[in-house]
Protein backbone atom coordinates (compact mmCIF):
# COMPACT_ATOMS: atom_id res chain seq x y z
CA UNK A 1 0.00 0.00 0.00
CA UNK A 2 1.29 3.41 -0.85
CA UNK A 3 0.89 6.52 1.25
CA UNK A 4 -1.09 9.08 -0.68
CA UNK A 5 -1.38 11.75 1.95
CA UNK A 6 -4.28 12.74 4.14
CA UNK A 7 -7.66 11.29 3.21
CA UNK A 8 -9.96 13.99 1.89
CA UNK A 9 -12.34 12.33 -0.53
CA UNK A 10 -13.49 8.73 -0.70
CA UNK A 11 -16.47 7.24 -2.58
CA UNK A 12 -18.31 10.55 -2.57
CA UNK A 13 -17.64 11.12 1.13
CA UNK A 14 -15.68 14.25 1.88
CA UNK A 15 -13.43 13.86 4.89
CA UNK A 16 -12.29 16.80 6.91
CA UNK A 17 -9.70 16.10 9.56
CA UNK A 18 -9.44 18.83 12.15
CA UNK A 19 -7.84 19.06 15.56
CA UNK A 20 -11.07 18.45 17.44
CA UNK A 21 -12.32 15.59 15.31
CA UNK A 22 -12.89 14.09 11.90
CA UNK A 23 -15.93 15.16 9.94
CA UNK A 24 -17.62 13.40 7.07
CA UNK A 25 -19.89 15.16 4.65
CA UNK A 26 -21.46 14.63 1.26
CA UNK A 27 -22.18 18.20 0.27
CA UNK A 28 -20.75 17.78 -3.23
CA UNK A 29 -22.85 14.67 -3.71
CA UNK A 30 -26.11 16.27 -2.73
CA UNK A 31 -25.51 19.44 -4.68
CA UNK A 32 -25.01 17.21 -7.71
CA UNK A 33 -28.16 15.36 -6.74
CA UNK A 34 -30.22 18.53 -6.60
CA UNK A 35 -28.88 19.50 -9.99
CA UNK A 36 -29.62 16.08 -11.44
CA UNK A 37 -33.24 16.18 -10.32
CA UNK A 38 -33.57 19.89 -11.16
CA UNK A 39 -34.38 20.94 -7.63
CA UNK A 40 -31.70 23.57 -7.04
CA UNK A 41 -34.20 26.26 -6.19
CA UNK A 42 -36.55 24.22 -4.02
CA UNK A 43 -37.58 25.39 -0.58
CA UNK A 44 -35.63 24.27 2.48
CA UNK A 45 -37.35 22.27 5.19
CA UNK A 46 -36.37 22.09 8.85
CA UNK A 47 -37.17 18.41 9.33
CA UNK A 48 -37.17 15.68 6.69
CA UNK A 49 -40.69 14.48 7.32
CA UNK A 50 -43.87 15.92 8.81
CA UNK A 51 -45.07 14.44 12.10
CA UNK A 52 -48.66 14.16 10.96
CA UNK A 53 -47.81 12.71 7.59
CA UNK A 54 -49.59 9.48 6.78
CA UNK A 55 -48.34 7.99 3.56
CA UNK A 56 -50.32 5.59 1.50
CA UNK A 57 -50.26 4.04 -1.92
CA UNK A 58 -51.48 6.50 -4.49
CA UNK A 59 -54.62 4.89 -5.88
CA UNK A 60 -55.54 7.90 -8.01
CA UNK A 61 -54.47 8.35 -11.57
CA UNK A 62 -51.44 10.50 -10.71
CA UNK A 63 -48.84 8.30 -12.33
CA UNK A 64 -45.35 8.77 -11.01
CA UNK A 65 -42.34 8.38 -13.24
CA UNK A 66 -41.15 5.21 -11.53
CA UNK A 67 -37.67 5.28 -13.06
CA UNK A 68 -37.13 8.78 -11.74
CA UNK A 69 -38.65 7.86 -8.38
CA UNK A 70 -36.40 4.84 -7.96
CA UNK A 71 -33.39 6.85 -9.06
CA UNK A 72 -34.23 9.44 -6.46
CA UNK A 73 -34.68 6.83 -3.75
CA UNK A 74 -31.41 5.11 -4.66
CA UNK A 75 -29.51 8.36 -4.56
CA UNK A 76 -31.07 9.35 -1.25
CA UNK A 77 -30.21 5.95 0.22
CA UNK A 78 -26.57 6.59 -0.60
CA UNK A 79 -26.89 9.97 1.05
CA UNK A 80 -27.89 8.28 4.32
CA UNK A 81 -24.28 7.14 4.75
CA UNK A 82 -23.60 10.56 6.19
CA UNK A 83 -27.09 11.96 6.68
CA UNK A 84 -28.65 9.61 9.17
CA UNK A 85 -31.33 12.18 9.97
CA UNK A 86 -33.10 11.48 6.68
CA UNK A 87 -32.86 7.71 7.12
CA UNK A 88 -36.36 7.26 8.47
CA UNK A 89 -37.99 9.40 5.79
CA UNK A 90 -36.08 7.79 2.95
CA UNK A 91 -36.80 4.28 4.21
CA UNK A 92 -40.48 5.19 4.43
CA UNK A 93 -40.45 6.30 0.79
CA UNK A 94 -38.68 3.16 -0.36
CA UNK A 95 -41.65 1.08 0.75
CA UNK A 96 -43.75 2.56 -2.02
CA UNK A 97 -41.45 1.78 -4.90
CA UNK A 98 -43.69 -0.67 -6.69
CA UNK A 99 -46.84 1.48 -6.72
CA UNK A 100 -45.60 5.00 -6.18
CA UNK A 101 -46.93 7.62 -3.84
CA UNK A 102 -47.65 11.23 -4.55
CA UNK A 103 -44.18 12.65 -4.95
CA UNK A 104 -45.06 15.48 -2.64
CA UNK A 105 -44.05 13.63 0.48
CA UNK A 106 -40.68 12.46 -0.73
CA UNK A 107 -39.70 15.86 -2.07
CA UNK A 108 -39.13 17.03 1.48
CA UNK A 109 -36.23 14.64 1.85
CA UNK A 110 -34.22 16.18 -0.91
CA UNK A 111 -35.10 19.62 0.31
CA UNK A 112 -33.51 18.89 3.62
CA UNK A 113 -30.41 17.60 1.94
CA UNK A 114 -29.89 21.08 0.62
CA UNK A 115 -29.00 22.17 4.13
CA UNK A 116 -25.33 21.67 4.89
CA UNK A 117 -24.37 19.04 7.43
Amino acid sequence: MSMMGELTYFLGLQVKQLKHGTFLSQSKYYFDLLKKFKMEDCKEAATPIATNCLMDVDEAENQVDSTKYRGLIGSLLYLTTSRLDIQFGVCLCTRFQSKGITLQSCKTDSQVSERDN
Partner: protein
Amino acid sequence: MNRKSTSGRCHLLGSSLISWNSKKQACVALSTAEAEYIAAGDACAQSIWLKHQLMDYGVKLDKVPLYCDNISAINLTKNPIQHSKTKHIEIRHHFIRDHIQKGDIEIMFVKIENQLADLFTKPLARDRFNKLITELGIVDMKNIC
Protein backbone atom coordinates in the same frame (compact mmCIF):
# COMPACT_ATOMS: atom_id res chain seq x y z
CA MET B 1 -51.06 -0.21 6.74
CA ASN B 2 -49.94 -3.67 7.64
CA ARG B 3 -49.46 -3.11 11.37
CA LYS B 4 -45.80 -3.86 11.43
CA SER B 5 -43.51 -1.81 13.63
CA THR B 6 -40.31 -0.06 12.68
CA SER B 7 -37.09 -0.98 14.46
CA GLY B 8 -34.58 1.78 14.94
CA ARG B 9 -31.20 1.53 16.55
CA CYS B 10 -27.91 3.35 16.79
CA HIS B 11 -24.55 2.24 18.14
CA LEU B 12 -22.09 4.63 19.68
CA LEU B 13 -18.42 4.02 20.29
CA GLY B 14 -17.40 6.57 22.86
CA SER B 15 -19.34 9.58 21.68
CA SER B 16 -19.14 8.78 17.99
CA LEU B 17 -21.95 7.19 16.11
CA ILE B 18 -20.69 4.17 14.22
CA SER B 19 -23.74 2.25 13.08
CA TRP B 20 -27.45 2.92 12.72
CA ASN B 21 -30.48 1.31 11.20
CA SER B 22 -34.16 1.93 10.52
CA LYS B 23 -36.14 -1.00 9.25
CA LYS B 24 -39.68 -2.25 9.17
CA GLN B 25 -39.95 -5.44 11.18
CA ALA B 26 -40.60 -8.70 9.38
CA CYS B 27 -43.47 -9.82 11.57
CA VAL B 28 -46.44 -8.29 13.31
CA ALA B 29 -45.90 -7.75 17.03
CA LEU B 30 -48.82 -8.17 19.39
CA SER B 31 -47.64 -5.50 21.83
CA THR B 32 -45.21 -2.59 21.95
CA ALA B 33 -43.12 -4.61 24.38
CA GLU B 34 -42.86 -7.38 21.82
CA ALA B 35 -41.88 -4.92 19.08
CA GLU B 36 -39.20 -3.44 21.34
CA TYR B 37 -38.03 -6.92 22.24
CA ILE B 38 -37.55 -7.79 18.57
CA ALA B 39 -35.72 -4.50 18.02
CA ALA B 40 -33.51 -5.17 21.05
CA GLY B 41 -32.67 -8.57 19.59
CA ASP B 42 -31.56 -6.95 16.32
CA ALA B 43 -29.49 -4.38 18.18
CA CYS B 44 -27.93 -7.16 20.24
CA ALA B 45 -26.83 -9.03 17.11
CA GLN B 46 -25.24 -5.89 15.68
CA SER B 47 -23.51 -5.07 18.99
CA ILE B 48 -21.98 -8.52 19.10
CA TRP B 49 -20.73 -8.15 15.55
CA LEU B 50 -19.23 -4.76 16.38
CA LYS B 51 -17.66 -6.23 19.48
CA HIS B 52 -15.96 -8.92 17.41
CA GLN B 53 -14.82 -6.36 14.86
CA LEU B 54 -13.29 -4.22 17.59
CA MET B 55 -11.53 -7.25 19.01
CA ASP B 56 -9.71 -7.55 15.67
CA TYR B 57 -8.46 -4.01 16.21
CA GLY B 58 -7.33 -4.86 19.73
CA VAL B 59 -10.17 -3.16 21.58
CA LYS B 60 -11.67 -5.47 24.17
CA LEU B 61 -15.14 -4.62 25.36
CA ASP B 62 -16.62 -6.31 28.37
CA LYS B 63 -20.36 -5.83 28.74
CA VAL B 64 -21.91 -3.76 26.01
CA PRO B 65 -24.69 -1.61 27.44
CA LEU B 66 -27.89 -1.63 25.43
CA TYR B 67 -30.47 1.06 26.15
CA CYS B 68 -34.09 0.20 25.64
CA ASP B 69 -37.02 2.49 26.41
CA ASN B 70 -39.53 -0.20 27.35
CA ILE B 71 -39.44 -1.81 30.79
CA SER B 72 -41.60 -4.76 29.77
CA ALA B 73 -39.21 -5.58 26.95
CA ILE B 74 -36.28 -5.39 29.38
CA ASN B 75 -38.03 -7.74 31.76
CA LEU B 76 -38.73 -10.16 28.91
CA THR B 77 -35.00 -10.38 28.22
CA LYS B 78 -34.19 -11.08 31.85
CA ASN B 79 -36.76 -13.77 32.43
CA PRO B 80 -35.83 -17.02 30.73
CA ILE B 81 -39.00 -18.78 31.82
CA GLN B 82 -41.74 -19.66 29.39
CA HIS B 83 -44.75 -17.50 30.02
CA SER B 84 -48.22 -17.65 28.53
CA LYS B 85 -47.90 -14.03 27.33
CA THR B 86 -44.69 -14.73 25.47
CA LYS B 87 -45.15 -18.28 24.26
CA HIS B 88 -45.92 -17.17 20.69
CA ILE B 89 -42.68 -15.21 20.25
CA GLU B 90 -40.45 -16.91 17.75
CA ILE B 91 -37.32 -18.60 19.04
CA ARG B 92 -34.98 -16.45 16.96
CA HIS B 93 -36.04 -13.39 18.93
CA HIS B 94 -34.93 -15.02 22.18
CA PHE B 95 -31.35 -14.71 20.95
CA ILE B 96 -30.87 -11.67 23.20
CA ARG B 97 -31.77 -13.58 26.39
CA ASP B 98 -28.91 -15.96 25.89
CA HIS B 99 -26.40 -13.17 25.38
CA ILE B 100 -27.61 -11.30 28.42
CA GLN B 101 -27.18 -14.41 30.54
CA LYS B 102 -23.72 -14.94 29.13
CA GLY B 103 -22.86 -11.35 29.97
CA ASP B 104 -22.04 -10.13 26.46
CA ILE B 105 -24.73 -7.48 26.63
CA GLU B 106 -26.23 -5.57 29.50
CA ILE B 107 -29.68 -4.13 28.98
CA MET B 108 -30.64 -0.88 30.64
CA PHE B 109 -33.61 1.41 30.72
CA VAL B 110 -33.56 4.85 29.16
CA LYS B 111 -36.36 7.36 29.24
CA ILE B 112 -38.02 8.07 25.94
CA GLU B 113 -36.80 11.71 26.10
CA ASN B 114 -33.23 10.47 26.11
CA GLN B 115 -33.71 7.73 23.54
CA LEU B 116 -31.39 8.61 20.64
CA ALA B 117 -32.78 5.93 18.35
CA ASP B 118 -36.18 7.63 18.31
CA LEU B 119 -35.01 9.46 15.22
CA PHE B 120 -35.07 6.22 13.27
CA THR B 121 -38.52 5.06 14.24
CA LYS B 122 -40.88 7.98 13.79
CA PRO B 123 -41.17 11.44 12.32
CA LEU B 124 -40.27 13.98 14.97
CA ALA B 125 -41.08 17.62 15.61
CA ARG B 126 -38.42 20.19 14.89
CA ASP B 127 -37.12 20.81 18.44
CA ARG B 128 -36.68 17.19 19.29
CA PHE B 129 -35.29 16.41 15.85
CA ASN B 130 -32.64 19.10 16.17
CA LYS B 131 -31.75 17.99 19.68
CA LEU B 132 -31.30 14.37 18.58
CA ILE B 133 -29.22 15.10 15.49
CA THR B 134 -26.87 17.26 17.56
CA GLU B 135 -26.51 14.49 20.10
CA LEU B 136 -25.83 11.99 17.34
CA GLY B 137 -23.01 14.20 16.10
CA ILE B 138 -24.39 15.95 13.05
CA VAL B 139 -23.09 19.49 12.86
CA ASP B 140 -23.54 22.25 10.37
CA MET B 141 -20.53 22.44 8.08
CA LYS B 142 -20.50 26.21 8.46
CA ASN B 143 -19.85 25.89 12.18
CA ILE B 144 -16.68 23.84 11.92
CA CYS B 145 -14.71 25.61 9.21
